């Protein structure tokens, strides 16, 4: 069969909403796009543990501490679901980690911002996880089977992350003057980076059309961003706080919120590695990997030894 025939069969399947599975024929560019997007997502989950781990030892109550540990543990799990799904495309775990550690692969730039106060745990849960959920729910229907299945699992677990975050902010918003200030300050710092999480505007996002045709993506960056702004602009009222955007206003004609211009220079700057914590995050990941090397080697040596013992006993 010619490549054109195979491509047609492939696209017909996608158009008919039939999932693509690991052993099915797929265009190289589809495979490459998936490996890039899925590994980037996996890396984001793994690096995303760092800003929150920063507050585990300083959580204000045992309940908050247990919750935060569970959330960080979920993120490790989400990273693993996604790494495994990516590996079905033929790229090994070692290679994926190597790409992260050398800076060749990216992760979500939101995790290059520092977590300065306890309120940041609330703002991350509400806004960062909220934006992530907005992005991730449509991915549960992505055309690649293992990716879609991993996303279903992730979305089920993610909802608690957002709710616990909002609860943290709600508690602070009903607290002392100082706590309310801390709450507002965290919202101020996390709002714009969260809005940027949806990626460049549609007219500056050249790969989007192809990803839509392949049904890896179901909604455009700007559509999802608008939805996020609309939802958040209402939710913030319950906190009695404000979003740091003087242009934010309900537009009766559009039935959507208008919002201010995004500082894309900041966005690209952080992606290029000049965010407040890029260096620190990557160093922490590399160090964890290197410090764990002896554990991985010892476990392998132990497994080999056990296998040899069994062989000898049989002989």
């Amino acid at each position, binding site marked *: 069969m010619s490549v054109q025939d195979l491509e047609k069969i492939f696209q017909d399947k996608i158009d008919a909403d039939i999932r693509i599975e690991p052993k099915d*024929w797929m265009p190289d560019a589809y495979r490459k796009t998936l490996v890039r997007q899925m590994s980037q997502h996996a890396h984001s989950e793994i690096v995303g543990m760092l800003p929150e781990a920063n507050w585990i030892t300083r959580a204000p109550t045992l309940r908050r501490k247990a919750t935060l540990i569970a959330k960080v543990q979920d993120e490790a*799990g989400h990273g693993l679901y996604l790494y495994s799904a990516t590996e079905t495309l033929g790229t090994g775990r070692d290679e994926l980690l190597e790409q992260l550690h050398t800076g060749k692969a990216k992760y979500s730039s939101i995790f290059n911002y520092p977590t300065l106060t306890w309120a940041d745990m609330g703002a991350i849960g509400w806004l960062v996880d909220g934006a992530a959920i907005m992005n991730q729910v449509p991915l549960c229907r992505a055309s690649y089977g293992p990716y879609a299945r991993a996303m279903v*699992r992730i979305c089920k677990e993610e909802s608690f992350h957002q709710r616990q975050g909002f609860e943290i902010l709600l508690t602070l918003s009903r607290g002392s003057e100082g706590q309310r200030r801390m709450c507002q300050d965290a919202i101020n710092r996390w709002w714009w980076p969260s809005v940027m999480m949806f990626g460049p505007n549609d007219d500056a996002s050249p790969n989007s059309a192809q990803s839509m045709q392949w049904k890896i993506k179901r909604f455009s960056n700007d559509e999802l961003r608008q939805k996020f702004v609309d939802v958040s602009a209402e939710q913030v009222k319950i906190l009695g706080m404000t979003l740091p955007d003087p242009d934010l206003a309900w537009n009766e004609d559009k039935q959507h919120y208008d919002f201010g211009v995004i500082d894309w220079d900041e966005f690209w700057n952080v992606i290029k590695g000049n965010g407040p914590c890029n260096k620190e995050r990557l160093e922490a990941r590399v160090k964890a990997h290197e410090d764990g090397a002896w554990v*991985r080697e010892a*476990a*392998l040596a132990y*497994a080999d030894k056990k296998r040899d013992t069994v062989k000898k006993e049989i002989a």
Partner: protein
Amino acid sequence: MSNQWPLWEIFIRSKQGLDHKHAGSLHAADAEMAIENARDVYTRRMEGVSIWVVESKHIHASNPDEAASFYDPANDKVYRHPTFYDLPDELKHM
């Protein structure tokens, strides 16, 4: 590369009476570790009562490219389905 722990496929029984179902995969040095990791990765919210692990290299799969011919023998045998048989409506309990 040779230092990488082997890959395992994970199957989970969500409750007694149901089949084990494929949940995903993970790396582990041996079967015992694969089961413990599977517990931490796939059953953090009581999603399982039993776990099977199989090293991925032991899984053999049919070839999707040959699906058309491979499943062809069943394709023209509608008489294997109960609705194929034309029976009067008065006939009850069948």
